[in-house]
């Protein structure tokens, strides 16, 4: 999220002060600009709308309850998104008994070699416009390991800066960049693989009577 102009940030901090001194109604005003972003972040991690809504509600509740612990070195939105990501992670843990994290823990250590297809082509720009392509991309994002999906969600879907993304995920800037690189190339590989499979499939259907 772009850095808020100082006066807007000051107004936000002022509003937080008023909420903390008893004007609880002000909380609605405080969170109104972030409702969509909180929901989307939860949705991108969880991929289920009903779960995302519940997690978003939980995140806002938790934000209210722990508002006093908000340290003002960060933007309110950064803090709020960190709560959201944590709530979404907890939901994922609940959803499956065994966390997949350990399975993927070694990804970031491994040396990356990109998929090079025999019929290599870059992803054509016009493909970007097609609905089918978008659906394919959604599938690929959903197929990413959790920690990669998180960073893609924050950095590339929400457009946050690397520093803010690192802060939300509790990573050093360097580690966040490494994870982002792995996530992007894995997403690209997934996409290239599926895209070409689809294209080949279509071609073969065309030539088969």
């Amino acid at each position: 999220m772009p850095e808020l102009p100082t006066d807007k940030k000051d107004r936000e901090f002022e509003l937080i002060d008023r909420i903390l001194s008893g004007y609880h109604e002000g909380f609605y005003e405080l969170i109104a600009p972030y409702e969509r972003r909180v929901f989307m972040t939860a949705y991108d991690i969880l991929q289920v709308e009903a779960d995302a809504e519940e997690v978003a509600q939980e995140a806002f509740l938790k934000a209210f309850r722990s508002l006093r612990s908000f340290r003002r070195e960060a933007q309110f939105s950064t803090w709020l998104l960190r709560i959201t990501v944590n709530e979404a992670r907890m939901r994922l843990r609940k959803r499956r008994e065994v966390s997949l994290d350990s399975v993927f823990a070694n990804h970031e250590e491994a040396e990356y070699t990109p998929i090079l297809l025999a019929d290599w082509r870059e992803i054509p720009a016009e493909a970007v416009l097609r609905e089918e392509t978008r659906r394919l991309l959604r599938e690929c994002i959903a197929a990413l390991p959790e920690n990669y999906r998180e960073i893609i969600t924050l950095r590339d879907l929400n457009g946050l800066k690397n520093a803010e993304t690192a802060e939300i995920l509790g990573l050093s800037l360097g580690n966040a960049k490494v994870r982002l690189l792995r996530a992007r190339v894995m997403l690209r590989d997934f996409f290239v693989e599926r895209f070409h499979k689809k294209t080949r499939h279509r071609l073969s259907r065309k030539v088969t009577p």
Partner: protein
Amino acid sequence: MKFDCKHIWRELSNYLDGEIPPNVRRDVEAHVAQCRHCAALLDSTHNIIVLIADERRLELPAGFSARLRERLEKELATSRPD
């Protein structure tokens, strides 16, 4: 320093984010100019990132704000932030 393909893969993300020292950027560009695999890799990853950023996001579910308010109302009326 002469760049090989592995260097490019390592610098890919930083290059696309523009977070790369000018001399490294020059090395990447020099390599990409004569390696079509890396050029394709760079282009396709760039396209993916553009595609993600441009993704038409689903809207908030109908009634989301009202339900959120309903959930928060009780909490706001009965408890205080810690």
